């Protein structure tokens, strides 16, 4: 879990720029977007948009997939992946613990019934 802070720092660094933040929002609003699509609606050149998108992808905030000659981006905030990782590791831990609890109770019950057996006649 401690590995998370490094990722968060990178996210902050990538988002320390207002232009990049609005790009992330624009991508999130569309679901997916290319530099060309975004440049058509923003007051910047396609090259500038492409450069910022690549920086955001490097920071793990966007996922890039090739779509023909263009690169298509979607938002994949790194901490979301941390959340999924947490869910899986905690879920696995509880599966194991509850199985151990069941065994522990079983052993406990056995020793109890031996202790409580009247006179211990059969053993």
């Amino acid at each position: 879990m401690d590995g998370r802070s490094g990722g968060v720092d990178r996210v902050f660094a990538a988002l320390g720029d207002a232009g990049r933040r609005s790009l992330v929002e624009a991508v999130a609003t569309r679901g997916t977007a290319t530099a060309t699509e975004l440049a058509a609606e923003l007051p910047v050149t396609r090259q500038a948009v492409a450069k910022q998108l690549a920086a955001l992808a490097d920071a793990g905030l966007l996922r890039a997939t090739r779509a023909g000659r263009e690169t298509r981006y979607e938002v994949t905030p790194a901490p979301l992946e941390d959340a999924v990782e947490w869910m899986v590791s905690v879920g696995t831990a509880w599966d194991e613990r509850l199985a151990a609890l069941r065994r522990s109770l079983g052993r406990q019950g056995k020793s109890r019934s031996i202790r409580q057996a009247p006179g211990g006649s059969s053993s």
Partner: protein
Amino acid sequence: MPSERINVEREIVVPEDPDEVWESLTDPDRLEEWFAQEVELDARPGGEGVFRWGDGDERRAVVRELEEPERIVLDWDDGGSVAIELEPVVDGTRVHVVESSPEFAPAFELRTLSLETSAAKPPTPGWEAAPPEAALAWTVAAAA
């Protein structure tokens, strides 16, 4: 503000009655049989617990709620928590566990904040120049 916590839930039914299961949840010796390798626990509201695992992991907790033999809630020192509830059923006891994560703040606040900053963004210049107050707002929102 939306909750950024996620929950993991598990449930089993064991043949023992709630009083027996309760001991396994609150007696450190019993907890060492299934929950962690080394357990210290002061099982009363406000009591503290230390749990150590074989891999060197150690977690500290405070008992937030305790209702014998029904419900115990621990707050972990990382901001997460776990609630274990016991319910008598025909063939024993239902053990219901809900572990809540610490907050995964930044990702979930991303959209809200960038909406705010884009609304405040000047139309043409300032593309490269981040208004310092916007960066500050982001940091504060993520730490809250």
